């Protein structure tokens, strides 16, 4: 119920077109029921007049029938147009709203979700919400208005007619939907879940196909996809049974109403309460009146599915970022130096500490390298500096202010990052570079390409900077992708440079060339280089050796070699 109210509140900015839609829908409903009722009466009256051999005024009922017919057809068109337009505007707004809540959660809070799953939330789940607005909100409002109109009209003839008709409408419009909603809750949730799991399974299967094939798991994955597909269809089958039930009970309800109304109306004929032609009117009116509740059972049956989708959306929207932004404005850093003071961090309660009592300083304009094996805590260091996570203990200072006092955006404005995981968007090379700076001029782009040594490559492409890259475009090699990252960092032109394994996975020749580009990039910036490769470390002001979350050695390249510790050992192995 809480979720439902919350969903309903989202519609408030769009209440005007929605209300207009409800009004048009109501007019359409009145016209439709009226058309049936007047036609029935008209035929019966004509017949009786014919039998009696008298004439009658057929102009007024004929005009009424014409009016009803026009209102009915045009009204339905107008109502659909208005409510659909408003709903899709709403959904479009909700997608942005969802994204704005999703964005602060990355990457810390989103680790547990598969991207296929997040995709189905922002796309399919939000689309599912149209059910609430188009099939629940509007029809319920119309049904309430319609029930009042039906009651008033029939009561004008005889209260018992109104009572019978309203009783049946209540059963069909309240009891049946309520029961269906209860029955539909579980399959509805299952539907959303099975759909998401099929979606995620499909992304897994398609993106990881090579490995699945080599490891002979292709057939197993096919079976798994088939099973997920079967589970989705099983959930749909349950829903289909219910919607069959809804359809059958509505038809039955309408017929029973007409039948019961006939039982009530026939004794009233000729008693002065009802004229004889009015029996035809009452029977057809009763049949047509069911249009008031026609959409409700189906809509409420889908409520489970809608709420399931809503919950999955709210789950993301309500999640608190791992490192929440402070309320106050960010401080202005007095310099571009970083200091870690006795920092301890673990990724979760019970998880082993990733960093323990780390103290280090990167003074403004200095270059510091952190060297360590995989899992020694190097990447964690970066995650903390970028404020994707906050440390449990100790402080991190940037420009003499605690990192926690900066808003994430303001902090990251000062940092440029070159990492091994550079995402290339499916777009042109130009757009991929402009991620770093949307206002970058052509000259700035060219300069960045030059330093990153991408210039020749771009020149060799027929479309130049407009070459399509990323998943659907040209696939760049590892070295080229890394160069794009360097060019992005140049375009961002931030005072602090964070390098996370910038040459990881590259061949030695490429690595050497890339280091040259990196040294150009380092000029005049504070640099923190995180690596396990002992390349280019001679140029660092300080080297820290990280082992299982602790700093075990520190000094310059020359000092560390002389000390004959772990670092010297690593270096020796490389040059034996």
């Amino acid at each position, binding site marked *: 119920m809480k979720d439902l109210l919350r969903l309903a509140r989202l519609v408030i900015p769009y209440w005007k077109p929605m209300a207009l839609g409800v009004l048009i829908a109501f007019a359409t409903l009145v016209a439709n029921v009226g058309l049936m009722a007047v036609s029935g009466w008209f035929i*019966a009256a*004509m*017949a*009786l*007049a*014919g*039998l009696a051999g008298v004439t009658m005024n057929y102009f007024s009922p004929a005009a009424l029938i014409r009016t009803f*017919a026009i209102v009915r*057809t*045009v009204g*339905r*068109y107008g109502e*659909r147009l208005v409510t659909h337009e408003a709903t*899709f505007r709403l*959904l*479009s707004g909700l997608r942005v709203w969802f994204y704005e809540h999703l964005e602060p959660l990355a*990457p810390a809070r989103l680790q547990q979700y598969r*991207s296929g799953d997040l*995709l189905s939330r922002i796309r399919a789940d939000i689309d599912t919400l149209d059910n609430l607005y188009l099939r629940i909100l509007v029809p319920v409002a119309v049904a309430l208005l319609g029930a009042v109109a039906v009651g008033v009209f029939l009561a004008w003839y005889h209260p018992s007619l109104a009572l019978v008709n309203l009783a049946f409408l209540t059963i069909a419009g309240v009891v049946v939907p309520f029961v269906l909603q209860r029955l539909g809750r579980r399959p509805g949730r299952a539907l959303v879940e099975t759909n998401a799991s099929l979606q*995620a*399974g*499909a*992304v*897994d299967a398609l*993106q990881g*196909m090579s*490995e699945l*094939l080599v490891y*002979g*798991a292709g057939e197993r994955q096919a079976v798994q996809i088939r099973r997920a597909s079967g589970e989705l269809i099983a959930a*749909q*089958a349950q829903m*289909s*049974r219910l919607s*069959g039930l809804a359809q059958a009970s509505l038809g*039955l309800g309408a*017929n029973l109403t007409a*039948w019961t109304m006939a039982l009530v109306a*026939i004794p009233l004929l000729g008693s002065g309460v009802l004229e*004889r*032609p009015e*029996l*035809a009117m009452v029977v057809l009116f009763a049949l047509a009146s069911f249009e008031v509740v026609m959409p409700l059972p189906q809509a409420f049956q889908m409520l489970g599915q809608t709420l399931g989708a809503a919950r999955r959306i709210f789950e993301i929207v309500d999640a608190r970022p791992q490192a929440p932004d402070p309320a106050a404005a960010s401080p202005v850093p007095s310099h571009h130096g970083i200091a870690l003071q006795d920092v301890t961090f673990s990724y979760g309660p019970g998880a082993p500490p990733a960093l323990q009592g780390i103290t280090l300083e990167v003074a403004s304009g200095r270059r510091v390298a952190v060297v360590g094996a*995989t899992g020694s805590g190097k990447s964690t260091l970066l995650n903390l500096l*970028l404020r994707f996570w906050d440390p449990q203990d100790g402080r991190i200072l940037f420009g003499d202010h605690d990192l926690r006092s900066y808003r*994430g955006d303001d902090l*990251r404005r000062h940092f440029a990052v070159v990492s091994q995981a550079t995402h290339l968007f*499916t777009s042109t090379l130009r757009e991929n570079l402009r991620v*770093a700076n949307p206002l970058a001029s052509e000259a700035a782009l060219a300069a960045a390409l030059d330093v990153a040594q991408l210039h020749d490559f771009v020149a060799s492409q027929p479309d130049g900077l407009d070459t399509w890259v990323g998943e*659907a475009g040209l696939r760049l090699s590892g070295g080229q992708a890394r160069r794009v990252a360097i060019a992005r960092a140049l375009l961002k032109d931030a005072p602090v440079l964070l390098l996370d394994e910038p040459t*990881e*996975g*590259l*061949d030695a020749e*490429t690595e*050497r060339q890339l280091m040259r580009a990196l040294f150009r990039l380092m000029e005049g910036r504070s640099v923190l280089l995180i690596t396990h490769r002992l390349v*280019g470390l001679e140029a660092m002001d300080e080297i820290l050796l990280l082992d299982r979350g602790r700093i075990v050695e520190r000094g310059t390249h020359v000092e560390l070699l002389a000390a004959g510790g772990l670092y010297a050992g*690593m270096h020796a*192995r*490389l040059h034996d």
Partner: protein
Amino acid sequence: MQLNADVPNNDTTAPAPGRWLSGQRHLAGAALNLAVGLGLAGGFLLIWQAWLLARVVNAAVVEGTPLDSLWHWLWPLLGVFALRAVVAWASEQVAFRAAAQVKLALRDRLYRHLQALGPVYLHGERSGELSSLLVDGVEKLEAYYARFLPHMAITALVPLAILAFVFPLDWVSGLVMLLTAPLIPLFMILIGKGAERLNQKQWRQLARMSAHFLDVIQGLTTLKLFNASRREAQVIAAVSDAHRKSTMAVLRVAFLSSLVLEFFSTVSIAVVAVLIGFRLLFGEMAFFQGFFVLLLAPEFYLPLRQMGTHYHARMEAIASAERLIEVLETPTPKPPATPVAPPAAGPFAITFDAVAFDYPGGRRALAGTSFHIAAGETVALVGPSGSGKSTTINLLLGFLQPGSGQVRVDGIDLTYMERDAWLRHVAWVPQRPRLFHGSVRDNIRLGRPEAGHDEVERAARLAQAHGFITQLPQGYDTPVGEGGQGLSGGQVQRIALARAFLKDAPLVVLDEPTASLDAESEALVQAALERLAEGRTLLVVAHRLATVRKADRILVLDEGRVVQDGDHDALMAAGGLYARLTAAYRGTEVQP
């Protein structure tokens, strides 16, 4: 039955989507015919109900019969109501079943086809778009089989049944119905033409939106680093707004067509009613006949009117079927006509004999590459980026077929082997291994799901992965997901190595096996690899000196050709590309 209402397509290469959809009907089995049968039964019940109801009203209105004398019509009415409810429920079930069977079969076929096309094809396509085709695209076919097909038959049959009852009673009304009925589908088809185009546009728009969202979600951290993630909200707004507009464009046409249909049927009913009314007034017709026909008139036009809705469903299915056909018609690499079994036991000797390969678009990846790897040999493949290493691997794994030349295993041309049969003998660790949804254990057991814990642990120990796995919150049962989130690149790499150890295949292909390992672990993994190499043929794409030096032989690739071939010392002595690469690796030339 008018099931083939599809307009033939001019495109001769691929089957017309409408015909194709109709061609998949057999997948639904008997359910479709049953749905039509139930629809027709419902039609007859409806006529019976109208007859009984007209009897009751006629008796009460015209003859003034009291309620007590009407029960012989009122009771059967209740029975008809109940029967109609049962038929309505059953129709829904049967129609759903028909569509469900088609969807299951097609989704399975599509996935298997994608699998047969192989990973190289998928790289060129957007996996976001394809996965949405696999899920939503197939889903969209539902309306075609569950609604459109059965309904087309019912649309033809039920009005005919009604006419059969109306004509003997009132030929005037029958004639009006008969003459006006064909106008409705005619107008619908006219409008439908334009809508079909819009619908295809709409489907492409949806696919594009999916692909864009997936791209953004996967690149969110990168966007964040550049403070571009907030800006992206505007792009999301623009993309979903474009989606709204194209959806509305389709719907507007759909609404318009139902407006037209409704208008025509309303006018037609009015004509029937007016003609009946005046004949009643002039005493030329009995009330019972008139009322009976009037009750049936809306029911006569109802299926025709609903055609608009169902035709819309068909168009949605057609748009999605187009993409399905496009993928399904992409020819898969032909399996050998008379497959040769791979050699029974390893280690294998591998021969590349003047292998050339061009990517579509003409980029030359391999230009007549020849080399030989003896059985049991450990060979390192080195070369700058773009020198053809990945292509070599894809050819060896059977994901690509050589444009010319041969890849031979123990003298047998690889193209004569079935891909899956061949891959059973290969273990592979790619550059960026992928972890699948499941536990660490499941991921190690990828190639041998039946492996026991001891074997898994042994493989993990060999891959230097046991240590960090036991430190994970749930050890081997720790769930891991797409991209191995929560694990470092090196840890993912070692889980992938454990996979290879567990598979125990006679040929092992490793793409940078020691990437993201520090020098110390690299030495440990190196030792493990040497153990793995025993009795196996090992091809290592390597950039690491330690790996390369232990290799029996090194192949140096440059611009799609083997330019150097020999062991470390020989190649160092020879100078050339290898010596340059090695010098660069040691960092001696890197100076700020």
